[in-house]
C-alpha cells in the first residue's frame, strides 16, 4: 500500500504540473477574464476518470493502475478548490451568468462526460 501511495503522489504531482502548464498555454491565447482553461481541465479530467473507472470495471485496467491514474494523475490534474475560488470571484464581480456557468454549468457537463466515459470504458 505504501508503494501504491507513493506512486499516486508522484502521478498527482505530474497532474498538478500539467494543469499549470495547460492553464498557461490556454490563457496565453485566450484572455483570462473567464476561467475557460480550468473548465477544459475539469471537464476533460472528469471524462478521463469515468473512462479509467469503466476500464477497471471491465477488467481491462488493473486496479493499481486505475488508482495511480484516477486518484493520482487525474486527481492532481483537476481542482475543485481553484474552481470554487474562480466562482466566488465571478460572484463578487457580479458576473452572474459566468458564475452560474463556472459552477452549475461545469458540474453538469462534467457529470455527463464522466458518465459517458464510464459507459465507454465498460463497453470496450
Amino acid at each position, binding site marked *: 500500500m505504501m508503494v501504491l501511495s507513493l506512486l*499516486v*503522489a508522484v502521478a498527482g504531482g505530474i*497532474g498538478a*504540473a500539467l494543469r499549470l502548464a495547460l492553464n498557461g498555454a490556454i490563457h496565453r491565447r485566450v484572455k483570462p477574464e473567464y476561467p475557460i482553461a480550468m473548465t477544459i481541465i475539469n471537464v476533460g479530467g472528469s471524462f478521463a476518470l469515468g473512462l479509467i473507472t469503466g476500464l477497471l470495471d471491465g477488467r481491462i485496467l488493473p486496479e493499481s493502475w486505475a488508482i495511480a491514474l484516477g486518484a493520482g494523475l487525474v*486527481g492532481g490534474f483537476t481542482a475543485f478548490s481553484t474552481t*470554487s*475560488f474562480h466562482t466566488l470571484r465571478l460572484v463578487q464581480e457580479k458576473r452572474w451568468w459566468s458564475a452560474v456557468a463556472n459552477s452549475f454549468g461545469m*458540474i453538469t457537463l462534467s457529470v455527463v462526460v*464522466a458518465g459517458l466515459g*464510464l459507459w465507454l470504458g465498460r463497453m470496450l
Partner: protein
Amino acid sequence: MNSDIEVARTVVGVPVAVRIRPSYLGMAMLGGAVGTFARFGLTLVAPSWASLNAGTMIVNLLGPFLLGALLQALSEGTETSRRRGLRIVVGVGFLGALTSYAELALDIVTVAGRGDLLLAVTYGVGTIALGALATWLGIFTAARWQRHAARHAVGSQ
C-alpha cells in the same frame, strides 16, 4: 478575471497570464504530490456512506477555505518571487491536488447510477455551494486576521 493563482495583474490593472517557467512546474509538482498523498490517505481512512466518502467531503471544504485564505493573505503589498512561489507550491500544487473535481463528478454519476437522483443532485449542488462559501470564509478569515495584525503592529509602536 482579476489576479489569481495563474494570472498576475500588471501595474495598470490589466490581467495577464503568467508565463510558465520550468521552475514553476517543479514547484507545482512538489506541492501537487503532497496534496495528492494527503487526499489519497484521507480517503483511505475516512468512512463512506452511500458510495460517498467523508474524506472527499472534508478536502472539498478545506481546500477552497485554505485557498481563499492563502490568496487573501498574499494579495496585499508588492508581488515578490517568494509570494509567487508560495502561490504555486501551496495554491496551485498542494491545495489544487488536495481536491479532485473529477472525483466529485464521478461520485455524482455513481450515486445517480444507483437510482438515487435526489442524493446525487443534493450532493452536487451542496458541494458546489459550500465550496464557494468556504472560499469566502477563508478570504474573510484571512482579511480579519490581517486587520488584527495591522492594528497590533500600530498598537505596539
